[in-house]
């Protein structure tokens, strides 16, 4: 007898349309149990919509999604019971204490009364908030609030954890603390983690595999290293105040990622360190004096550029999320 081991997530031809817009446009992928999987893409790519379908919060227009073999349309209660969710917005109530937030959710997940107190204290201890458990959440910093949200999502010991932009709106310290926490969860509890992010560094450091999403479509999927290898070399960024930069590049026969703009171009070369002197010479030979030359190993941003033709714009979403949180704390006070 062979036993089928279900994937943690199995998505087939998933589609979600709102009137004219296709938020999710026919995506398919699998996430094996125990993996940290990330959907990387700009705002509006359809990442959050995908998470919400997986969590049974909204219904897909067509296609199917299964969590540990359970259909999101037919077994929503069971899926919710084994899932943890940290939404992009705010999910803890500022007007009660951290302990109370945890207590209410322990009841909503149907934890037996005898276990509640112990479990809550364990999780708060684990997440490093035990000493602030009795404080009102509105007195928390953004990073602490985010950690409490993570704690709250662990109350039912989820088999799969959904993190929607886990570090959005956090300052660099809080962001690092959040990442450390996610790694710890993965290391110590072995949870399957499904996250979305527009932050390529986050995707690179946290995820085993990444799916790049753009305008509702899943463009490419793979491990960070495999994806970066597909860029096909190192990236040498050259800039010069010369309008004919793209012509010169064409004449010299260099490959670029994306189109040169604002007098800057990303050249794709093998062995970047050794290529730089030759590049400078070659441009000089064409009468172009380069202002700067910059070498970098390919990043996921380059991968994104290669597959979608544009860079991930990360300005607006971050600022917006931070602002929402600050407004919330101010209003709660």
């Amino acid at each position: 007898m062979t036993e089928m081991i279900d994937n943690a997530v199995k998505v087939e031809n998933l589609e979600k349309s709102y009137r004219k817009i296709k938020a999710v446009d026919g995506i398919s992928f699998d996430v094996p149990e125990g993996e940290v999987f990330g959907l990387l893409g700009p705002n509006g790519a359809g990442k959050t919509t995908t998470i919400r379908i997986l969590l049974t919060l909204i219904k897909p227009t067509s296609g199917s999604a299964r969590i540990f073999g359970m259909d999101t349309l037919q077994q929503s209660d069971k899926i919710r019971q084994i899932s943890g969710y940290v939404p992009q917005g705010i999910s803890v109530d500022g007007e009660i204490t951290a302990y109370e937030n945890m207590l209410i959710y322990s009841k909503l997940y149907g934890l037996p009364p005898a276990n509640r107190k112990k479990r809550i204290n364990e999780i708060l201890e684990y997440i490093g908030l035990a000493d602030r458990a009795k404080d009102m959440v509105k007195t928390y910093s953004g990073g602490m609030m985010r950690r409490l949200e993570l704690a709250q999502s662990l109350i039912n010991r989820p088999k799969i954890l959904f993190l929607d932009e886990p570090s959005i709106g956090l300052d660099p310290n809080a962001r690092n603390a959040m990442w450390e926490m996610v790694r710890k969860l993965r290391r110590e509890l072995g949870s399957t983690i499904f996250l979305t992010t527009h932050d390529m560094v986050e995707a690179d450091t946290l995820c085993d595999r990444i799916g790049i999403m753009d305008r509702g479509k899943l463009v490419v999927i793979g491990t960070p290293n495999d994806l970066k290898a597909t860029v096909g070399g190192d990236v040498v960024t050259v800039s010069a105040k010369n309008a004919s930069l793209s012509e010169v590049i064409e004449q010299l026969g260099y490959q670029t990622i994306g189109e040169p703009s604002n007098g800057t171009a990303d050249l794709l070369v093998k062995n970047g360190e050794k290529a730089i002197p030759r590049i400078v010479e070659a441009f000089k030979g064409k009468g172009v004096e380069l202002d700067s030359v910059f070498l970098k190993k390919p990043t996921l941003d380059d991968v994104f550029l290669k597959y979608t033709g544009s860079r991930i714009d990360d300005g607006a979403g971050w600022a917006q999320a931070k602002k929402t949180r600050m407004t919330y704390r101010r209003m709660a006070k």
Partner: protein
Amino acid sequence: MKLKRFITSMLAITELELRKIRHDQSQIWMRLIQPILWLTVFGVTFSAIRVIPTGDYTYLQFLTPGILAQSVIFVAIFYGINVVWERDLGLLNKLMSTPAPRSSIVLGKSLAGGLRGILQALGILLIALVIGIDLILTPLSILGMLVIIILCGICFSSMSMALASIFRTRERMMGVGQAITMPLFFASSAIYPVSIMPDWLQVIAVANPLSYVVDALRSLLVTGDLSGLGLDVLILVASAAVLLFLASLGFKRMLV
């Protein structure tokens, strides 16, 4: 088992709302100011000029149940704003991702609206006693009053939540709340008997759940004539059921 889960979720939501009130009790005291003014300024003035026929009872006696009901609906009718606010923040999103049935969330919230009404009702009752309004206060009449107040809170907070799913922004909900509270209040028997209203207003008053709240409270606290109480309760329970159903339907729409 399913029922037990439903009740646990519902009570957890109610508990959440009540804990918030416990942490910030000032809102309860603030909400007592308006009813005090209605009783001490409006009530006392209209008693003095004797323009409203209230039979064997003083105008203040007649008015007190109306003000009790009013204080509950004025809070409950804005309940939907909280829901919109929670939706905007993301709290609702998180709440809906738990296994708690949606209807238990709605019921839990409106039950909290009702229980909150109780705190206010007790405050107003105390004030009524202080200014010497003669009311029937037996354990049974007070218990009856509490039940009616809870039903009233459930009715109007569900109405507000159902409206919130249609209007969807806090600003619009402020407007909607203000637009409907006064008509609800004036087209009921809260401050004058239905019998002195023009015919068209009487029709509205009969369809207005608030009239039955006031009627029930008046028979419990003022007249002691409980013959109509059964019908009042029946109508209130039915209204609550319909409004809860509409609010639960609306809750789904809130998330899309």
